[in-house]
């Protein structure tokens, strides 16, 4: 029975897209509040991606359920001990806020309300992000998940993938030269998020390494049996190569004075692939 994956790729994809939604929402609120109307397009893109991404994630969650038609039952029960019950409520509230927020961005009106809605959504977005980690952390049966840094790794995971998707979309915009400043800021935020994520992964692995025998065995399974997904997909493709490419891009820009649109495109794509790999390997290796 130990080889049975009760939770598999559908849950990994749900967490991946849900995480992207959280990241894009926070990114939209951050950009619109710090840079006001300066970075309108990036904020707008991020705000619109949010509910779409959450909806895609939710679709995969429903696909995973044995009886998706009964999902409403979750909202009819009071289950304070269940992280899934909390998650269902938090994500429902966050989704409603993100839909309204995206709609206000699309219609370009009531900016005051939009700002308030954005700030209201931040704690919910953060809660959903923390929930993604907490959901895994509560399972005592899974030593791979049952560590504090799991939550931390999840939080940073949604920031990297969320920002990466916005960067990817911005590099594909036809008049992208207009977005040079936005792309540059986004790229730098992405770089910082990747560096922090690498740190949290190291923290997670060390907590497993120095933990009890079961945690140690779980870590060996992650880095050994699933080493290809973890080292190759999540760490090298998703974090190390993008970080290196980002450094090369900044160096090139300083030397030639030209901004490379291709490198952020590739970087963000790799971060997304790596983010999905990380989600997948964390779920199945447990």
């Amino acid at each position, binding site marked *: *029975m*130990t080889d*049975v994956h*009760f*939770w598999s790729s559908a849950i990994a994809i749900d967490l991946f897209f849900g995480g992207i939604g959280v990241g894009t929402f926070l990114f939209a609120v951050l950009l619109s509040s710090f840079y006001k109307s300066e970075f309108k397009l990036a904020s707008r893109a991020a705000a619109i991606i949010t509910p779409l991404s959450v909806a895609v994630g939710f679709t995969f969650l429903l696909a*995973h*359920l*044995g*009886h*998706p038609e*009964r*999902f409403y*039952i*979750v909202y009819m*029960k009071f*289950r304070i*001990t*269940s*992280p*899934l*019950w909390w998650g*269902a409520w938090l994500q429902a509230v966050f989704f409603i806020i993100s839909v309204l927020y995206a709609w206000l961005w699309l219609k370009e009106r009531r900016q005051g309300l939009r700002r308030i809605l954005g700030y209201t959504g931040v704690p919910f977005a953060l809660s959903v992000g923390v929930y993604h980690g907490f959901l895994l952390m*509560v*399972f*005592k*049966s*899974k030593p791979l998940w049952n560590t504090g840094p799991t939550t931390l790794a999840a939080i940073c995971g949604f920031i990297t993938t969320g920002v990466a998707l916005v960067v990817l979309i911005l590099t594909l915009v036809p008049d992208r030269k207009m977005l040079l400043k936005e792309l540059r800021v986004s790229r730098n935020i992405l770089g910082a998020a990747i560096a922090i994520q690498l740190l949290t992964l190291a923290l997670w692995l060390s907590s497993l390494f120095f933990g009890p025998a079961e945690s140690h065995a779980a870590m060996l399974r992650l880095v050994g049996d699933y080493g290809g997904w973890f080292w190759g997909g999540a760490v090298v493709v998703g974090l190390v190569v993008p970080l290196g490419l980002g450094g090369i891009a900044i160096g090139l820009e300083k030397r030639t004075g030209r901004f490379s649109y291709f490198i952020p495109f590739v970087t963000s794509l790799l971060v997304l692939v790596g983010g999905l790999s990380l989600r997948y390997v964390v779920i199945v290796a447990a």
Partner: protein
Amino acid sequence: MERDSTRNGHSLTRREVLRATAVAGAAVAGGAVGLSGCAGRRAPAAAAALEGKRFAMVIDLQRCTGCGGCSLACKIENNTPDGVFWSDKVTRTYGTYPNVNYEYIPTLCNHCESAPCAQVCPTAAMHRAEAGIVNHDPDTCIGCKACAVACPYDAIFVNYERPHAFWRDQETALEGITASAHEVALRVKGREIPYYNTAREEDTPRTGIRSKGVPEKCNFCLHRLRRGLLPACVEACPCNARIFGDLNDPNSEVSRLLGKYKPSRRKEHLGTSPKVFYIRSYNRGAYKSTKGSV
């Protein structure tokens, strides 16, 4: 639950051996009605008698022979799908030749006091029923499988495919001579499967004929307990290795055994407080002399 204290107090009798043989024979014969045993109406007095009780099981490993009769009885009683064993085992061969040992540990749902499966369930489908038994209600289950992920004992099974596939099999052993399982199923009053435990179905709908996408697990044969009977595995064990009773009753057999022997439980460090206790050892080298009884 008086029966368990009397039946565990004596050694194996010829009658019990015959009874175990009859159980196995009936399984091979395909079921019929007899083994649903408790297929009658629920006895209200017995159901009410579960109030205030805290059921637990003690497995005496020294008495266990590893015959697997418990697993067989469980499958007959609960018509679990192929590959699903609520009553299961963990085996281990250890040591180096010539000092090699074999260990057989019967396993089942531990009905933990602090059950992680029930805690994580977002719809209370996995819930604590009477007498501290952790039960599952397929009708309110959304099939998120969180309970199966949360269980540290791999005691929860998920019906990914439509269950009871055997009864849809149209292949015959001898073409034109024997009937296929599907033909047999069609002949029996149009039921999807010809045999299932009506008592289970009566107590918790959709636990007789299963539905796809929901988990299932041992519930200490709650339908039998409600009718004043012992769990099927306890009833079938030819060696009386399974002792079932009320932890809240200091005079019960389980309380007595837990007082007499130092029990162990699976993965105690997780803090789930399992209610399946193991006493003594399967390993012959660690046998304690009991002069034929516990």
